[in-house]
């Protein structure tokens, strides 16, 4: 008890210095947590993917479409319980910086494959009845203030022209990892418009989404789908939804790696600050340590004092930092809007924050503790700091 009290007293001796160190730790811990959350957000699409869904795309690359008549052939494969399709629309809402993903989907079947998009039954009915209607996610609706009944104008980039859609339904995510920044509309509407404009581009879709009854057969069914269309005009590549999403992440992997590295750089910066504080503290107190030694306290007691003080400062900084991470992350998420559809501080991030703070606290005291433990009593008493 006295030991703890002594540590606390020591910590409060230089209030300014301890306060500044804690402040530095808070900044570093918040920055570290935020960067880790950004990395998590990068993988959010893959995290939210279901293992019971496969995605079939054109083998050349995603920009090549697939013919709509593949749908019935895939449906007949054993183990396929449902199939739908989606096409990337790539429209611009007012200006490029308001990016959000838009898909033309098969309105009858698509949402049956995605039970995590929760839509009120009457809104679903209204969407299916309106060929120019659309379904949007809650986050997208909040970002731009869209309400049911509003018209959303989009400028087509892949499909030229000015397009207007009426919001008929807003979906919520069943889980926190569900992406609610998307925009869905009727593929039939897109197809019929293209029929009038560019007949060559009718009856093509972007990707097929296949639901399988047994996730363990994913590899087998994928192989079967691809074999069916080998040597055809549009060869396919089928993979699990998770692999499909991870494919996107790996294309920008360099950025993820850079953010990871940077998140550890901030830890080293704060380690330098913390180690400096402890080094100065120990240096000033060498005389006291010598006195304590002369009184009969062992080197481990002195080391304990130093490690204890360092840990106390580190953990105080970590506690405040972790508490602050949540409002800062919420604010950040609001600022970037639909750029990161899912942005939440995970439990692992909090554990990592606490763990790094502890490591920083311990590592910062290694040198000062060694010095205090080793200093001969006479030299220590003679020291003037």
């Amino acid at each position, binding site marked *: 008890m006295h030991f703890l009290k002594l540590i606390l007293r020591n910590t409060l001796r230089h209030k*300014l*210095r301890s306060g*500044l*160190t804690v*402040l*530095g730790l808070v*900044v*570093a811990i918040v*920055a570290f947590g935020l*960067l880790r959350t950004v990395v998590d957000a990068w993988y959010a699409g893959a995290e939210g993917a279901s293992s019971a869904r496969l995605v079939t795309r054109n*083998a*050349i*690359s*995603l*920009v*090549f479409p697939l013919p709509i008549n593949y749908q019935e052939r895939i449906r007949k494969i054993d183990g396929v319980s449902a199939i739908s399709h989606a096409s990337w629309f*790539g429209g*611009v809402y007012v200006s*490029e910086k308001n990016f959000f993903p838009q898909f033309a989907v098969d309105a009858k079947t698509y949402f049956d494959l995605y039970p995590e998009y929760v839509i009120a039954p009457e809104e679903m009915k209204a969407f299916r009845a309106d060929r120019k209607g659309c379904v949007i996610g809650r986050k997208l609706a909040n970002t731009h203030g869209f309400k049911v009944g509003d018209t959303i104008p989009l*400028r*087509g*980039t*892949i499909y*030229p022209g000015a397009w207007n859609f009426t919001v008929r339904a807003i979906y919520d995510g069943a889980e926190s990892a569900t992406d609610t920044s998307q925009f869905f509309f009727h593929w039939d509407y897109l197809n019929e418009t293209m029929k009038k404009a560019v007949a*060559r581009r009718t009856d093509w879709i972007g990707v097929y989404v296949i639901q399988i009854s047994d996730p363990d057969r994913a590899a087998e069914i994928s192989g079967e789908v691809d074999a069916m269309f080998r*040597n055809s*005009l549009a*060869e396919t*590549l089928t993979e699990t939804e998770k692999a499909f999403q991870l*494919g996107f992440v*790996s*294309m*920008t*992997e*360099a*950025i993820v790696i*850079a*953010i990871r590295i*940077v998140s550890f*750089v*901030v830890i*080293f*910066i*704060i380690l*330098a*600050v913390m*180690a*400096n*504080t402890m*080094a*100065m503290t120990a*240096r000033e107190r060498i005389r006291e340590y010598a006195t304590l030694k002369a009184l009969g306290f062992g080197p481990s007691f002195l080391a304990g004092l130093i490690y204890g003080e360092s840990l106390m400062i580190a953990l105080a900084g970590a506690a405040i930092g972790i508490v602050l991470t949540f409002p800062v992350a919420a604010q950040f998420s609001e600022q970037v809007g639909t750029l990161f559809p899912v942005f939440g501080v995970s439990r692992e991030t909090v554990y990592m924050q606490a763990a790094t703070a502890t490591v920083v606290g311990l590592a910062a005291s290694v*040198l000062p503790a060694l010095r205090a433990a080793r200093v001969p009593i006479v030299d220590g008493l003679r020291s003037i*700091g």
Partner: protein
Amino acid sequence: MPILLSYTLRNLAARKLTTLLTSGGMALVVFVFATVLMLEEGLRRTLVETGSMDNVVVTRRSAGTEVQSVIDRDQAAIVENQPEVAHGIDGARLASKETIVLISLVKRDSDKASNVLIRGVGQKGVELRPQVGIVEGRMFSPGSAEIIAGKSIAERYHGARVGEILRFGQREWTVVGIMDAGRTGFDSEIWGDADQLMQAFRRPVYSSVIVRLNDARGFSEFKTRIEADPRLTLEAKQENVFYAEQSRVLANFIRYLGLILSIIFSIGAIIGAMITMYASVAHRTTEIGTLRALGFRRATILLTFLIEALMLGAAGGVVGLVLASFMQLFTISTMNWQSFSELAFSFTLNTAIIAKSLAFALIMGVGGGFLPAARAARLDIVDSLRAA
């Protein structure tokens, strides 16, 4: 003043560990700051040098990228025959009708797939890009299933070295050459014959038309005519502008993320400097009193401590820059969100970045040193002489 300067230096030397740790923290911040600027500069240089002032890229209106653009054959012919388009030595127009698609290739190191841009170029396509040279093998011959790969594609993707074969569009394509485009965006592309590629991909349309103008000043006239022509739904951009726009999102992302991080991190380093400087002032209270008693002014004391903080910052800045300069050895390759294809670029250091980084380091020094220095300057002579 020289006395005070050596006093400052000796003080820094007396507390080696503290000096090292404080400057070390700042060095890391400067490293991050400089690296981000170098990355942005590398990206800028790669894309700006890809385009030339004299060339014009014509794409479908509001397509944004060549991949999304579609130009019919008759529209392309109209563009090619505009009066501003230059003639080559053979009398033919200096125009290249190109088809651009993305294909998914597998990386050598990670076995992961990424999108690579493949460009079908017309007969004049190479002449329009003088920066492109063949460094290994030879040029593809028109009318054949031959392709050449950009340097950074050949290094990083399976099947893209000379003599290797890539299979797409129901055909096998032999890589016959490697092109070096002087670190421009073309290094991250694969080129082949436009007609062959269009056939293989069953695309009866072009993606873009690149033309060389007789005179770069004729651009605005050319642009106005193209964009006003009711037969065309196209837009024209100078090639360098076109490529700069291609990277805007990625460049902004790097810049903002980098700046925000540098500022947040610098708070940590400034706090480190403050702790050091406050301690420095506290240790030397008696000495400050002595100096003041000897006749040194408050302003001089302030300056002395500020110089000490600036030296800490300068040391951090130099070390951080030295560390960052090693990053020039690395190349980053990532997907450019706008073109949805792979782009390789390297960290590029220039004098502006060196100056900015050093200034940033000095600002951190002043930020950390000002309050402690002000405290030192405000000390009362009698009180400070009495302090133990």
